[in-house]
């Protein structure tokens, strides 16, 4: 019999192929007769396409050329709305918008040709920031530039202002952030009239691409096939964009008579043209009592969606629901909007709106605490949400939650209290060139799709028992580095009580696996993992029902049962479909109810040194304490937290997208700098495990996005402790820190 496999650091399923270089990513694949594809993009942020000129010195007759006219179906990327064209036909709405596609077998000549095409655009007035968009400086989308708005309303916030002892206001902003997966976007496509369309690529969500291609080519589902290759990181950046690049390659292939077409973006193109984290602005108005109890919170949250609707509505939703944090407050009103600008559409990036609104809240609460005369921790302790209390959406917290306990543990691990006092004293005394500070943030992150999202998705997972006893999991959930293959195998192995090595993952291929939903939203372990568990249990039930397996069994007996079953009855498969846990209710109209099945809870502490000669900030220590339900794999789980914290540190101190007329101008790794191994502090990760009743493997919840949320406010809170300056924007670059310190003198 197996020892417990869940909770143990078993070897990553595809670990060996990754450390030997044998793992095959899309750019590692070649097909006979393959062409390379390239994209001609808009030079202008907004305008009417006047002319496209093909320059001299290029044998144009050798090229496959695709424009909007060549699209067989609808010229729109099917996602939420159908507003984004695959290829701009008459108008362009952002720089780098795709206009024309080229393919040739000679890569070098292709690039020469791409540069030889010039697009003349008659300019129209453009809008570059959310402020300009809100001010309706120019209407560039719909009637009012607003893609989506939400209103969350709890209690009656209008009545609290008169009763409040104190009212504290603040405004907080965040910049764009590039996902910067080390493997750029890439696909290979084959499309022809006989066989339909097949796309192989680097992606998070094969069925999103599938859905988009159906519309683009006006084909029935069975004629489109999408296959995920090994994927070199996603972080949200390969949630939606593969639908675009996959469609482009397929259009070229169709025009080229079915020859395979590969498109791989170079880094500069990937950074300039594909999605980034939504820039945001959050305004807070908070009413508190003299004793430090929250009476009312009025929050206005705005995100810059870029030129098309894409995923902004759902990013906004998550940001909105997380905007009031893990606190109990009787009166909350959150108004939020996603607005249009003439920049490439912003999209999914780990945290999905929550890091933006949580940054604002956790900076603001330090300000409120100071106004009340309490320490940041004491103020939060008086307001932490507890079991039975309600969130901003009136979701009753039914699980055991102990934010104060997480805070205690984080403080103990960092020696927070004594450092807080010591640094303050030393900073006040010292004439040195270094100031030190320590700060924290407390927050939560909901796992799975928001509200009725999972109900709408109705995800399915399959499992197949092979004649030799191996069990193959059939799911469209992708391995993008986070460990899907490994944790699914652990969950299946544990459920069936058979060896981990007997479990394997089918390649995500829409021709072969059911739609288990997108690999996003911290849903893979908690939601899809539960389906894996029930699907494999279906196999056992069948074998036991057929009298081939007893209640307890060895691996050998399992193999034998599978062999006999497959011989006698043919293939043994089992499928499981999502059903919401009992008692979950969500009202999409009022935007209230159970926003998420479960939350992860966390307190993060950052310790910093500010160099007053160069205005650079170094994070010296980072402690992440979180409650995530059952930890399925301790090393993978810690790896998720460490990687997310590293991205959060980048978001806070290093990664600054420089815009000029709607174009990212620092679109190289040299000039958009992410942290190196020499920059990061020790990232120390601690888990509390409070099993979630409906989670798989004894109660796992979601984990992927959580670590992106707490870093920015914890670090800026620490910088305020070090410098006494209340910074309100990330990224906080040294240039801004210098100005802030100057103003405070």
């Amino acid at each position, binding site marked *: 019999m197996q020892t417990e496999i869940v909770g143990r650091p078993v070897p990553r399923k595809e670990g060996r192929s990754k450390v030997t270089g044998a793992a095959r990513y899309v750019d590692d694949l070649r097909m006979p007769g393959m062409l390379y594809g390239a994209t001609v993009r808009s030079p202008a942020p907004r305008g009417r396409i006047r002319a496209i000129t093909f320059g001299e010195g290029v044998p144009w007759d050798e090229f496959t050329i695709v424009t909007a006219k060549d699209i067989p179906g609808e010229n729109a990327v099917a996602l939420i709305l159908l507003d984004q064209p695959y290829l701009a036909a008459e108008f362009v709405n952002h720089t780098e918008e795709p206009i024309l596609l080229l393919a040739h077998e000679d890569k070098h000549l292709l690039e020469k040709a791409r*540069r030889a095409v010039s697009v003349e655009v008659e300019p129209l007035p453009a809008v570059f920031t959310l402020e300009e968009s809100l001010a309706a400086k120019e209407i560039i989308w719909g009637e009012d530039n607003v893609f989506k708005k939400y209103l969350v309303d709890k209690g009656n916030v209008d009545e609290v202002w008169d009763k409040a002892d104190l009212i504290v206001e603040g405004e907080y902003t965040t910049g764009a952030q590039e996902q910067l997966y080390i493997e750029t976007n890439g696909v290979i496509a084959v499309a022809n009239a006989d066989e339909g369309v097949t796309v192989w690529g680097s992606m998070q969500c094969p069925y999103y691409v599938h859905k988009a291609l159906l519309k683009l080519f006006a084909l029935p589902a069975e004629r489109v096939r999408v296959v995920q290759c090994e994927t070199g990181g996603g972080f949200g950046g390969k949630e939606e964009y593969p639908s675009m690049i996959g469609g482009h390659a397929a259009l070229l292939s169709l025009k080229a008579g079915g020859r395979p077409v590969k498109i791989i973006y170079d880094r500069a193109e990937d950074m300039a043209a594909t999605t980034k984290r939504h820039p945001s602005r959050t305004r807070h108005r908070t009413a508190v009592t003299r004793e430090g109890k929250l009476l009312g919170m009025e929050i206005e949250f705005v995100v810059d969606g870029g030129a098309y609707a894409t995923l902004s509505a759902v990013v906004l939703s998550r940001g909105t629901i997380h905007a009031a944090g893990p606190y109990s407050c009787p009166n909350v009103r959150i108004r939020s909007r996603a607005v249009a600008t003439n920049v490439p559409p912003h999209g999914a990036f780990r945290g999905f709106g929550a890091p933006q609104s949580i940054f604002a809240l956790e900076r603001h609460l330090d300000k409120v605490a100071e106004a009340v005369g309490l320490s940041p921790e004491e103020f939060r302790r008086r307001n932490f949400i507890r079991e039975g209390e309600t969130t901003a959406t009136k979701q009753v917290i039914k699980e055991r939650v102990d934010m104060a306990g997480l805070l205690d543990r984080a403080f103990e691990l960092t020696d927070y209290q004594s450092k807080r006092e010591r640094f303050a004293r030393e900073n006040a005394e010292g004439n040195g060139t270094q100031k030190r500070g320590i700060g924290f943030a407390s927050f939560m992150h909901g796992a799975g799709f928001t509200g009725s999202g999972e109900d709408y998705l109705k995800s399915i997972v399959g499992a197949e028992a092979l004649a030799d006893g191996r069990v193959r999991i059939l799911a469209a959930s992708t391995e993008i580095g986070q460990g899907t293959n490994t944790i699914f195998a652990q969950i299946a192995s544990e459920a069936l009580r058979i060896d981990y090595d007997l479990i394997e993952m089918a390649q995500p291929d829409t021709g072969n696996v059911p739609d288990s939903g997108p690999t996003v939203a911290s849903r893979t372990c908690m939601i899809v993992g539960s389906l894996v568990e029930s699907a494999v249990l279906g196999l056992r039930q069948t074998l036991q029902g057929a009298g081939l397996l007893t209640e307890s069994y060895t691996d050998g007996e399992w193999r034998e049962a599978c062999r006999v079953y497959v011989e006698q009855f043919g293939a043994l498969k089992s499928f499981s479909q999502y059903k919401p846990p009992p008692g979950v209710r969500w009202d999409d109209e009022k935007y209230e109810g159970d926003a998420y099945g479960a939350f992860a809870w966390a307190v993060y502490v950052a310790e910093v040194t500010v160099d007053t000669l*160069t205005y650079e900030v170094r994070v010296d220590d980072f402690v992440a304490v979180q409650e995530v339900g059952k930890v399925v794999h301790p090393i993978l789980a810690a790896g998720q937290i460490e990687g997310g914290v590293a991205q959060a540190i980048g978001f806070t101190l290093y990664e600054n997208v420089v815009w000029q007329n709607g174009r990212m101008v620092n679109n190289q790794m040299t000039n958009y700098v992410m942290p190196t191994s020499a920059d990061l502090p020790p990232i120390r990760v601690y888990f509390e495990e409070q099993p979630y009743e409906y989670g798989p493997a004894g109660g796992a919840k979601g984990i992927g996005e959580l670590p992106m949320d707490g870093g920015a406010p914890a670090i800026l809170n620490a910088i305020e402790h070090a410098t006494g300056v209340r910074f309100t924007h990330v990224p906080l670059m040294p240039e801004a820190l210098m100005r802030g310190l100057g103003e405070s003198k």
Partner: protein
Amino acid sequence: MRSYLPDYHLRAPKTLSDALDLLAREPNVWRAFAGGTDLMVLLEFGVLPHKNFLSIRHLPELKGIEVTPEHVSLGALTTYTEIQRHDVMRREFPLLCAAARETGGIAIQNRGTLGGNIVNASPAADSPPALLVYDAELELVSANGARWVEYRNFHTGYKHMKMRADELLRRIHLPRTTGDLKTLYRKVGTRKAQAISKICFAAGARVSDDGRVRDARIALGSVAPTVVRCARAEQVLRDQTLDEATIKAACATMAQEIAPIDDMRSTAEYRLRVAANLLADFLSTLKTDGGASGNPT
């Protein structure tokens, strides 16, 4: 790859004299190509204007670190890794070792050359400020012979230098007279490794027993069209004691010798302020303990 590769050419002449002959015959056709860490990036981005290159990386006359009682002579092809591994360099030229250590990552340090860093003529390069402090001299060779130029007069404007199209940089000489300087090298580039500098500061000085500055050398990168040796600020410091007024005056003079700009990496305001902060810090530390500060060099 955004360049059309068949348009480009790279040849490897057998000997130095073959290379120099070719440069003499077709002086504006060929350019030297050493470790490639700058040129290959331009090629990748499709912005390498010149088309024909001579690979000189294998030429022995341009390699090696030689030590005489008066000089250290570095072949133009000396890599950043070789600089860091050399005992005399570590002992006597800590600013250059610090620069080498902070240029790119290990893979760049293994490939990038000191000569390339000089001739590429980027004002943001990491080693030139150190070379300026050390009064480096450059040996240029052509088919007609060799000549020496002082490095401090070498760069004449953005990407302009006193070097003819038929010449190659053969060696860099550093006089061994600076081993007792108190030094500070500080590269400011947002992140700690693999950064392009926003400001690069290198300085060295001696303070005599009576507390007077006897030899001050201050150089900066990324603050003007070329790297800058701040001669006037040095003049302000000469033979002075390091009181607050002197430090202030030196910083003010230095600020007039540099001309930083706003670009996508930083702002003129930041560069000016940080340059002044670093000089003031260097001088204050010099005053208090006469010793080195900042990065351990």
